[in-house]
């Protein structure tokens, strides 16, 4: 999502000055759905109280945070959700919500409208209830979510549909797109399936392979420009991450993303991470003031020091421009914040191929190719070389 010059300037300012401009707060990990791809542990291990969250929000407002996202878990399972939204709005935050909307009725939609919540993101996995409900594991969930979206729209609220694509709903993108058009709401197709926050990698088996995604990304219904070799790959494709803001800015040219620069994540237990997809513990707001963590955590500083141009493998990659490497996933999947990881390389190669590059290969995959035996090659070309003293070569 390109920004206006005004917003771009503010993003640059906040990145340069390390202001926590945008903060994602998960209010709970409890949920009334059991989505098969969810990365959370839904047990309550001691969520922050209403007073604790209000204290954090006050600290964020004083720190300069403007954009606040409440997410979970399912946020409407918290009895104090409206109290927290109202408190946040009294502090003049721009408030967005992420919810499955199962608990939103006409009255709650009206209250959200009265509180001037600006955006509500709802996940829809398919327009087919059999498929959607099989992913959420709640029978009737699609019908309830769609009814809630209509309640929200009736109040004039901005709703956005996110559609995480996995093996179970690979072909659903068309009917979700049609549904979004019918409802008149924007949508984003999210190809990201992440490991669980505890490091469990089992969810990755739900991911579609690059080969399976190729026909999706080439589908002219999604991307009218994909048939043109001159068009930038995915130029009009509504893909992105359901967890990120999707905000693009020239301020991010040599840094991987906003994480730790002008945005961060706070868990229901008060843990502060650079991003929900980057579970590096930097501190806990129950034990330290937020700004102390934000300004002085060594882990936060380590994340801030990363420059794309200095990544040991990725900076040498010839198809870097097609890559959407996520440093958090590099840490979780590859074990190295600075490293390359398989999924990003596969997707970059896929997009490079779509752009017309013959046999694209990422730097990581290039490293894994069998290396030719240069000594043997040299011997074949120059039989005398192996017996030539090094001194004579230099001389």
């Amino acid at each position, binding site marked *: 999502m390109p920004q*206006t010059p*005004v*917003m771009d300037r*503010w993003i640059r*300012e*906040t990145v340069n000055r390390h*202001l926590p401009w945008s903060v994602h707060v998960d209010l709970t990990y409890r949920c009334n759905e059991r989505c098969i791809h969810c990365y959370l542990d839904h047990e309550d291990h001691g969520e922050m109280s209403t007073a604790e969250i209000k204290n954090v929000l006050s600290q964020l*407002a004083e720190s*300069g*945070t*403007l954009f606040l996202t409440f997410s979970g878990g399912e946020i409407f399972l918290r009895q104090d959700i409206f109290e927290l939204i109202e408190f946040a709005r009294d502090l*003049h*935050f*721009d*408030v967005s919500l992420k919810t499955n909307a199962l608990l939103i009725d006409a009255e709650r939609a009206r209250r959200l409208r009265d509180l*001037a919540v*600006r*955006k509500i993101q709802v996940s829809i996995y398919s327009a087919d209830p059999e498929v959607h409900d099989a992913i959420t594991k709640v029978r009737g969930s699609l019908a309830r979510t769609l009814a809630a979206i209509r309640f929200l729209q009736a109040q004039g609220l*901005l709703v956005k549909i996110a559609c995480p694509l996995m093996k179970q709903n690979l072909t659903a993108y068309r009917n979700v797109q049609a549904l979004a058009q019918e409802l008149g709401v924007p949508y984003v197709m999210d190809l990201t399936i992440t490991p669980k926050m505890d490091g469990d990698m089992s969810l990755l088996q739900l991911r579609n392979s690059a080969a399976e995604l190729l026909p999706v990304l080439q589908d002219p219904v999604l991307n009218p420009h994909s048939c043109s070799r001159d068009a930038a790959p995915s130029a009009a494709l509504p893909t992105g991450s359901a967890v990120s803001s999707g905000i693009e800015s020239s301020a991010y040219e040599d840094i991987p993303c906003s994480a730790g620069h002008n945005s961060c994540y706070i868990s229901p237990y008060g843990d502060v991470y650079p991003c929900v997809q980057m579970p590096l513990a930097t501190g806990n707001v129950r034990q330290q003031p937020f700004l102390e963590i934000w300004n002085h955590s060594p882990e936060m500083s380590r994340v801030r020091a990363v420059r794309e141009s200095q990544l040991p493998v990725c900076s040498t990659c010839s198809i870097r421009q097609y890559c959407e490497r996520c440093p958090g996933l590099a840490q979780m999947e590859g074990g190295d914040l600075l490293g390359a990881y398989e999924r990003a390389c596969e997707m970059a190669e896929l997009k490079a191929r779509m752009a017309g590059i013959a046999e694209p290969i990422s730097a990581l995959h290039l490293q894994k190719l069998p290396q030719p035996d240069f000594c043997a090659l040299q011997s074949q070309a120059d039989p005398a070389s192996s017996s030539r003293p090094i001194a004579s070569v230099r001389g």
Partner: protein
Amino acid sequence: MSECVVRNPRLAWREVDGEMIIISPDGQVHELNETATLVWKHAAGDKGFEEIADEMAAEYDVTLEEARADLAELLVALEHKQLLLVGSSRKG
């Protein structure tokens, strides 16, 4: 009290080092200059046109007539953008 001047309660906003940024419900981004920021800060609903003009006159060392003229012009622009509500008594 003179006509009430109050911030649109549906906006989000933050002041960073004296600069004011405002987000409209439709996602539009607005920046305020120094004078508009001063008016914005006084537009909490407890001051009217005359009181804010007084504040401007004191802050910028201009006559009350000059402050009134500048404020009237500013209010038209800010009301047009739906950033301020004039004549309302709602708290912002």
